[in-house]
């Protein structure tokens, strides 16, 4: 039997989480370093996964399969395709930065009792989420995926509710109430989505008799497993609903601004850059493969919802007064692009969507983490409280600008490639949708540049005058992310090489071919 690389990649952060949680209360710094080392170790393992993965080989590689719960027809089955590899790499890449950026976010307050160990808990929860996310990107058993999809809500919930942003307006009690509201909203939205998916998971079992993604998909493709049209559509809707809540797609998005606003910046990055990707990833992997006919049936509606997300998210981002909520609405707009790319059913669209997931992760992390550093310095999340920062803290302002430009998909930075691909892919099949979606880019320029202008330029505000520039730890967080944005913007080939074969498989699952270009068709 070969080395269970995927299991180990997920087991390391899980074990690290338990160890970190067990560190005694007084040894806070030990816990931090332990978490950082574990997340770096996971990054090494994830790199190993990417190296061992052969883009031209089998569809699912590094597979593992063990009996688990035979009564439910459940196996512990792992395997990655190119999309999974890219997202595992993204996850493992971002966690060390999240840990480093959140270094002081969970230091205990003076007043707290000695037995309460927030720091240990904070880092242990982050590692726990990492383990579950990695495993969910690798799961090829629907039930296993479902379990992880649901279980990761619990550590996320404690991260949001237990460790709020210390920069808040109003009283502590008020902030605590808002925070627990955000955490509960996050959990309930996702739990309801998950429970509806549970009904569909059970329905799938009744229809298919097992949970193996590869077996069911093969049986579907060969026509052995017939599904009544209505059954397939209902099951599809059950799955899609859960993923649309997670992703989040308009009109199920309202939990995201609350959660991202109230959580600390690193946790907000964890939500939007890592955990939410599970939703869009699952659309590609489960919705399209298991229910190809229903996916095609639902495409027009989903494209419309995605368009609404793009425009509505961007419009609301323009109107935000809170920096973190602005990034949250921008993310909603970007998730609209991702979902549109997936359901455009063209290979450019789906490649673009997968790249978009990775690039959005990196660019949002860069923007949000710098925003977090800014907010920690001033103690306020309101845009109006800032002004002229670039004169006081030029490095901070510069990195903030790069993150912002990446968010608006400036050519030369990584997100441009993916956004362009998504738009091209969509236009080929749905020209009107492609055109409308372009307005999202214009609005993105508006909200990003206005944000930069209001906070960084202009006369220096009194409260900002003494603001220190980025410290070494913060530079270590930001510099590699920006470097990555530049590299992937100029040379995205390593990523596209891994992703493209997987997208071709998915396209053949839904029996779609790219529409021929108009000019060629006219000949």
């Amino acid at each position, binding site marked *: 039997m070969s080395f269970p690389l995927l299991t180990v990649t997920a087991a390391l952060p899980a074990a690290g989480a338990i160890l970190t949680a067990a560190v005694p209360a007084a040894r806070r710094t030990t816990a931090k370093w332990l978490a950082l080392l574990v997340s770096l170790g996971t990054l090494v393992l994830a790199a190993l996964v990417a190296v061992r993965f052969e883009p031209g080989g089998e569809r699912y590689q590094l597979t593992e399969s063990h009996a688990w719960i035979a009564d439910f027809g459940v196996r512990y089955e792992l395997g990655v395709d190119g999309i999974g590899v890219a997202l595992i790499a993204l996850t493992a890449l971002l966690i060390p930065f999240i840990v480093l950026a959140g270094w002081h976010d969970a230091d205990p307050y003076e007043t707290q009792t000695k037995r309460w160990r927030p720091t240990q808990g904070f880092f242990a929860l982050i590692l726990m989420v990492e383990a579950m996310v990695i495993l969910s990107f690798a799961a090829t058993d629907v039930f296993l995926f479902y379990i992880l999809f649901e279980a990761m809500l619990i550590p996320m919930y404690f991260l949001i509710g237990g460790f709020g942003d210390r920069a808040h307006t109003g009283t502590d009690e008020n902030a*605590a109430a808002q925070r627990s509201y955000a955490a*509960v909203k996050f959990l*309930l939205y996702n*739990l309801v989505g998950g429970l509806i998916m*549970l009904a569909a998971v059970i329905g799938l079992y*009744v229809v298919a008799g097992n949970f193996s993604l590869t077996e069911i998909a093969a049986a579907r493709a060969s026509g052995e497993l017939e599904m009544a049209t209505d059954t397939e559509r209902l099951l599809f809707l059950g799955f899609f609903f859960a993923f649309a809540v997670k992703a989040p797609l308009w009109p199920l998005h309202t939990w995201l601004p609350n959660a991202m606003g109230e959580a600390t910046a690193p946790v907000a990055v964890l939500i939007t850059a890592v955990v939410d990707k599970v939703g869009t990833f699952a659309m590609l992997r489960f919705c399209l493969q298991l229910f190809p006919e229903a996916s095609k049936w639902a495409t027009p509606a989903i494209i419309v919802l995605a368009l609404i997300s793009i425009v509505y998210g961007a419009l609301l981002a323009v109107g935000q007064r809170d920096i973190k909520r602005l990034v949250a609405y921008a993310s909603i707009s970007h998730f609209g692009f991702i979902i549109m790319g997936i359901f455009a059913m063209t290979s450019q669209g789906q490649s673009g969507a997968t790249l978009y997931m990775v690039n959005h992760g990196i660019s949002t992390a860069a923007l949000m983490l710098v925003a977090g550093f800014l907010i920690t310095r001033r103690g306020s999340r309101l845009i109006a409280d800032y002004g002229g920062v670039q004169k006081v803290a030029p490095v901070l302002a510069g990195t903030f600008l790069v993150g912002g430009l990446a968010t608006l998909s400036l050519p030369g930075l990584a997100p441009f490639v993916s956004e362009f691909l998504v738009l091209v892919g969509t236009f080929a099949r749905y020209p009107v949708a492609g055109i409308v979606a372009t307005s999202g880019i214009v609005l993105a320029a508006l909200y990003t540049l206005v944000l930069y202008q209001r906070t960084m330029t202009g006369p220096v505000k009194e409260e900002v005058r003494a603001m220190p520039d980025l410290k070494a730890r913060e530079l270590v967080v930001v510099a590699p992310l920006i470097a990555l944005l530049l590299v992937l913007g100029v040379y995205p080939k390593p990523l596209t090489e891994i992703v493209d074969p997987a997208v071709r498989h998915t396209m053949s699952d839904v029996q779609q071919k790219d529409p021929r270009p108009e000019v060629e068709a006219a000949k």
Partner: protein
Amino acid sequence: MSASAAVAVHSLWTTAAEPAAADRIGAPAIEYAQLAPTLIVVGAAVVGVLLEAFVPRRARYHAQVFLTVVALAAAFAAVVALAAGGHATTKAGIVAMGAIAVDGPALFLQGTILLTSLVAVFTFAERRLDPAHHGHRVDSFAAEAAAVPGSEQEKAAVKAGFTTTEVFPLVLFAVGGMLVFPAANDLLTLFIALEVFSLPLYLLCAVARRKRLMSQEAAVKYFLLGAFSSAFLLFGVALMYGYAGSVSYARIADVVDGSVSDITPALAQTMGNDVLLLIGFAMVLMGLLFKVGAVPFHMWTPDVYQGAPTPVTGFMAAATKVAAFGAMLRLLYVVLPGLRWDWRPVMWGVAIVTMLAGAIVAITQTDIKRLLAYSSIAHAGFILAGVIAATPDGVSSVLFYLGAYSFVTVGAFAVVTLVRDAGGEATHLSKWAGLGRRSPLVAAVFAVFLLAFAGIPLTSGFSGKFAVFKAAAEGGAGALVVIGVISSAIAAFFYIRVIVLMFFSEPKPEGPTVAVPSPLTMTTIAVGVAVTLALGVAPQYFLDLAGQASVFVR
């Protein structure tokens, strides 16, 4: 007495015996080995009563705890030995002259009841939570149950350091009844077992040390409503006898499917009359639905759960549910498989109302024990969904669910006993605010139990819920699954509310303290957590066990 009546009575006593021996009453044939679990427990209960009479007061507590634990463990060993000897599968059979079935479901449920009781008894024996009175360690039970609350007599009893050690034999009697209940193979045994376990429970509810008036009120409510439901059940038994001319499950089943043609002369008028069957069966079912706390027979649950001493609540919530669902399964699957289409719609309705009402009403609760009571109602609804499946998978999923649920319940109530203020247990939810800050471990453990109740993956609650929903979906009850999922979502709200309170609210300065328990309660809680996580992560072994145990003998 007229001759025909005499024949009727006579035949009542002899239907189960050999036909050749009908004219004389011989010594009954009792298979002592197969009945060993019940006999050990009831025997120990009798010894416990004798201990109460003859052992000096200061030694009673230790003697009783020792006796109870040993008896329950021995009975569990006997169950395991029987199952290992094949009595659950190949050698399953009817014993005690047709009164009791020894088969897979019976042994599985008996094992579950015994283990749950064993773990629950540790919380009964806990004496470190309350501060010592007059130099005597005290447990959760009144110094002298017969003393009027607040009277001189009570004060004297407290001062003298009396303790109600009678609770231990009472528990044993209750367990004895519960062991027979799911194994009962005729309606009279069913009724007697019901009374044998109910009466000690009524008493146990009344003997709380603190809040005695509430405790007594709970007991009276439980007793009155319980007596009412017993009466229904008994009336139902009578009607069923009128229908089938027998109280034996097998015989009734034969009459239902029409394979019996000899009509008991005294019942010629009524035998085979479906009206009697349907009304009688509805009444018997009512009695059982009362015991599991299904809507609309659930009214007693919150009051009794709240008023009873918490160790009793935990024991009652877990073990009674196991026993009553076991009895219901046997009744539905052995007696009435042919009538599935008559009882299914009704049970659908009951399951739907139970799931939804339990979940919705729980949202408004402000007392942790009442909250858990409504949660237990919602869970009864989930289990009913599995019962309705009417397939072997349905049986095994219900068995598994009951095992998983009972340990979560016992564990959760054990945690409730720990959170205390000056007035005893602090059960009002507002007092639990910030518990996670002050006692992270206790709060984390309770959170695990709540997540299991909510059915979050990687806990036993999820495995169980998945098993029953899967069985229900395969049994053609897809709509029930959807409603179950919706009520799970509603229920998740209030479990999460408690977690929010514990972890995200600031502790109140005058809030309750968490008592440090003795190893007894710690064992209970540790076992609860261990089982909850084990059944969540690796449920296969227990699913197999439940799967093998899912065939009823007839």
